[in-house]
């Protein structure tokens, strides 16, 4: 039995080395496809994290006149807080607004320099209970003509647009990586078919002398497994690189402040890495099992 295992490993190694160019092609393709696949998952996580702070959040903003007096302010505050259609609301003072302005537009220091806290109006950020656009607009409009209110702005459009772009990118990545995964499975299948072809003579002899079916099959399936595993290993490395340099790089970036929330934490990264490893192994096994079952009629 010990002999069998060492035989299997030796055979698998020989197979991998004997067709080195096909081995490299298979591993390259599977690692790139899985790296893209994993990165697209990470990008989706990142975008989800980044947009979470808006999602179900500010649905409209009531901008006050900086000159509004305390009575007007109190009246607005009361009507917002007492409205049954309002789920929650936050008051953003001029100083807070300026702070936020500075954060959001850190890429335009000249603008930050040009604006002062007193230039920015205080505001109420209101979350309606009913997220339906018509209801939100109806509710928001009630405040528009009240005294002390400068304007009511509906913020959801802008956020939806950001999410749309982000989803477009990560969906694109997903499709590309699925196509590459198919290519990888085909490649592994072919690597095994070629390996079987190259060892036809040996297999013929093995069948003749009565080697059991699994004894003949296993080295080939192990070969596919190794392709999948090594490819997935490289892909996981690439994913850590993407997280540490690309995604973190964006979120540290001074200029693309909108991407500031783009973060992928370690738990998410480990979760996605395990997914990628599992898919790599699955692709390797499925590709080789298919090749073995069709080409080795043992």
């Amino acid at each position, binding site marked *: 039995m010990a002999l069998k295992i060492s*035989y299997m490993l030796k055979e698998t190694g020989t197979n991998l080395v004997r067709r080195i160019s096909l081995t490299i092609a298979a591993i390259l393709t599977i690692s790139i496809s899985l790296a893209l696949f994993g990165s697209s998952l990470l990008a989706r996580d990142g975008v989800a994290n980044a947009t979470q702070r808006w999602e179900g959040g500010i649905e409209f903003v009531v901008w006050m006149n900086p000159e509004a007096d305390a009575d007007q302010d109190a009246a607005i505050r009361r009507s917002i807080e007492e409205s049954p259609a309002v789920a929650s609301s936050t008051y953003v003072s001029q100083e807070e607004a300026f702070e936020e302005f500075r954060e959001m537009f850190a890429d335009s220091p000249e603008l930050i320099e040009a604006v002062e806290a007193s230039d920015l109006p205080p505001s109420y950020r209101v979350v309606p209970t009913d997220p339906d656009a018509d209801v939100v607009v109806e509710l928001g409009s009630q405040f528009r003509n009240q005294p002390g209110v400068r304007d009511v702005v509906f913020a959801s459009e802008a956020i939806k647009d950001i999410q749309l772009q982000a989803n477009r990118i990560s969906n694109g990545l997903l499709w590309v990586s699925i196509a590459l995964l198919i290519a990888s499975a085909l490649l592994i299948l072919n690597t095994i078919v070629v390996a079987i072809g190259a060892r036809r003579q040996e297999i013929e002899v093995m069948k*003749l002398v009565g080697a059991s*079916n699994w004894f003949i099959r296993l080295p080939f399936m192990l070969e596919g497994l190794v392709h999948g595993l090594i490819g997935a290993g490289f892909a996981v490395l690439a994913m850590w690189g993407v997280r540490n340099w690309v995604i973190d790089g964006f979120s540290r970036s001074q200029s693309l402040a909108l991407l500031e929330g783009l973060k992928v934490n370690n738990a998410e990264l480990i979760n996605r890495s395990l997914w990628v490893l599992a898919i790599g192994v699955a692709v390797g096994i499925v590709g080789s099992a298919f090749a073995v079952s069709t080409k080795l009629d043992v």
Partner: protein
Amino acid sequence: MIKLENVSKSYKGGTNTAALQNANIDIGKGEFVFLVGPSGSGKSTFIRLLNKEEDPSDGRIFVAGKDIGQLSSWKVPYLRRNIGCIFQDFKLLEKRTVAENVAFALEVIGRPRSVITKQVPAILELVGLADKVDSFPTQLSGGEQQRVSIARAFVNRPLILLADEPTGNLDPTTSVGIMRLLDRINRTGTTVVMATHDRGIVDTMRRRVVELDKGTIVRDQAQGVYE
């Protein structure tokens, strides 16, 4: 040992006439049987059926008392461990030495190394190649290569030895040597079935001769001649 009951075989996409038609035969333990007949008469088909390389279109085949038609596919390897095979073209692995070629047959059926290191030299001694263990097949004459292939077929001490024109590639003198070896193996109690069209061998050996013609057994003669 081997029994065929009304066995017929036609190949898909082959000729209309069957490669083997309604064959009935009974071969006892330790017999030596020559299969003769013109080209295409079904000799190789007969041999491939015994080995379950092909399945009969009709009829039943018993090997060592078992109906091999009933054998589930994962048991076929265990059938084959009881049957050694020799071919005209030797089917040796060129990248392996003589000893490795023989050892391969034991390795791939999971025999432990201790058994392999004992049996391989013994069988090479038997076939007269003790001094060529480390040669590669291309460094051997045809007769020596055929001895290696016999050693490989016999190292696991099978009950039956099937030989499909084992001397087809060999000159008359070398052929005689191979036949002596097969005869020796047969005397150990191994059943031998050999397809051939070497008239000289059949006529000299004087063993049981089964003649096929267009897939039909037309003659079954003890101590027969080629025709």
